[in-house]
């Protein structure tokens, strides 16, 4: 296969994301590992959303619900494991990441199924708003529900464990996140090229056409939405472990908005769009935040410049228009 430009850029991005923490580790600058981990996790969350939004055209303004759900799964299971109090049905909490991941993914799928089943009756802006409505319900619930900290959130005192490694080491945890990100992106790539992906993308472009060839757009979209929720939920669990803390702000509409922004910034529907977007956003947030207290002003200007002058986001700028074979 010939390397086209986008593939090349993608490889460079993936390599960079790996190289920076390795270098930081060697130089004894663990903070940059943390930063890279954050990028990887946000990119994973956005990759999930990208499946719904980029491929399916389902602009979910409520993906923070899944992100936060994943986060709370990690937080709550860990808290119960710590305190020893049993959870529902006498089950106990756990500090094993992989168990947490499975629970987060399954719960996200279920919640995604419920939200999607109702939301997908609407379309366009109505869809944006109904997904927002669901996320807001979860948000307000979390804020005012005392057992798990309400607005104060929930601390995970010690990062959850993964068999055979020490997750408290920043580099180890980064590598876990990095591998999961690559798996997520790989899944995205497979799905995009598959029959299901074709149908999903076609449903975005022309719903009537899809129905006319005999494919139910609703089912395709619902499936896409659920898969998307699962990936974002998993990212949420990782995010909680990164911060060792989970709070309703993971569920807020700002978070949903930020995920959307990451995608557009990187390039909607592009394989590595979320990663490019997350890297750019986090890097600017970090760099500007250190420079000036007016950093949000300049962040705004930069985002604006990207929309106005880089059509199709960062990848659009670097790799040109997306092709659909």
């Amino acid at each position, binding site marked *: 296969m010939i390397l086209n430009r986008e593939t090349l850029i993608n490889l460079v991005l993936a390599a960079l994301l790996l190289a920076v923490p390795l270098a930081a580790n060697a130089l004894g600058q663990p903070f940059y590992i943390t930063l890279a981990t954050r990028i990887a996790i946000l990119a994973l969350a956005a990759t999930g959303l990208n499946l719904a939004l980029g491929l399916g055209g389902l602009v979910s303004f409520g993906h923070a619900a899944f992100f936060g759900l994943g986060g709370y799964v990690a937080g709550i299971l860990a808290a119960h494991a710590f305190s020893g109090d049993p959870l529902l049905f006498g089950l106990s909490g756990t500090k094993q990441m992989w168990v947490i991941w499975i629970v987060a993914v399954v719960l996200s799928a279920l919640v995604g199924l419920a939200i999607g089943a109702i939301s997908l009756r609407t379309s366009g802006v109505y869809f944006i708003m109904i997904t927002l409505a669901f996320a807001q319900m979860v948000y307000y619930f979390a804020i005012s529900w005392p057992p798990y900290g309400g607005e104060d959130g929930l601390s995970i005192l010690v990062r959850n464990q993964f068999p055979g490694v020490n997750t408290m080491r920043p580099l180890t945890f980064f590598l876990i996140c990095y591998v999961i990100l690559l798996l997520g992106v790989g899944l995205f790539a497979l799905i995009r090229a*598959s*029959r*299901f992906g*074709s*149908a999903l993308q076609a449903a975005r*472009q022309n719903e009537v*056409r*899809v129905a*006319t060839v005999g494919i139910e757009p609703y089912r395709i979209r619902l499936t896409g939405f659920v898969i998307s929720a699962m990936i974002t939920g998993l990212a949420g669990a990782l995010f909680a472990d990164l911060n060792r803390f989970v709070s309703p702000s993971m569920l807020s509409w700002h978070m949903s908005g930020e995920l959307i922004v990451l995608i557009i910034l990187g390039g909607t529907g592009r394989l590595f769009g979320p990663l490019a977007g997350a890297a750019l956003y986090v890097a600017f947030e970090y760099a500007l935040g250190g420079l000036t207290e007016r950093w949000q002003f300049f962040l705004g200007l930069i985002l604006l410049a990207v929309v106005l002058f880089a059509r199709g986001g960062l990848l659009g700028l670097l790799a040109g228009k997306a092709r659909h*074979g």
Partner: protein
Amino acid sequence: MVEPVLEISNLVKNFGALRATDGVTLDLRPGEIHALIGPNGAGKSTLIHQICGTLRQDSGTIRFAGRDIGAQTGAERARLGLGRTFQVSSIAPEFSALRNVMLAVQAKQGSSFRFFKPVMRDRGLVDTAMTMLERVGLTARARIPAAELSHGERRQLEIAMALALRSQAFLLDEPMAGMGPEGSKSLTRFLDTLRREAPILLVEHDMDAVFALADRISVLVYGRIIATGTVEEIRRDPAVRAAYLGDHA
């Protein structure tokens, strides 16, 4: 008499006070091209929409391939073998012509819930789609995004998609519209061969094509069929001349 493939009886559709189809009864027999003509706004497209399930009829029945499909969704009817084209082309604009057709092929071949195998590496899918494009003469344009196709080419693409569904019946809503004289002629020839595959309900204002192709013609005026008959009968029918043909005959 052979069993009709498609049988519509007493189909009624109201838009508020407007009765767009007013008790239409019509059938489509194997191997035939049944033309449906009528003035603008007579309800032809509305009728097609109801048959395909894009619109739900208020009353009346639609039988297709021996069963009542009046309650099924559009997608289900398509899977049963109703292939259609739209009066205004309806395609997935970002996909290439090829992937548009592949979408139809994959729908025909079975489930769209396959998540891992890349479609472009699926020879069966690609080759079948290419065959369809070849049949409508779009081979050279296969890799062009559908948005960049000219008007006429999009119409051909739609037909290729209907073909790919291996439909039991074709419902074509003004396929000639926007085709140049040459295009119309070749499409006419093409439809003439297509009828061997499945019967066609043809809505068309291009009378040259209709007269050349139709086995039977029904004339819809204000939501009602006012006449059904052979080309000659219809050409001679004074009511049809007044309502529709004018001095074209």
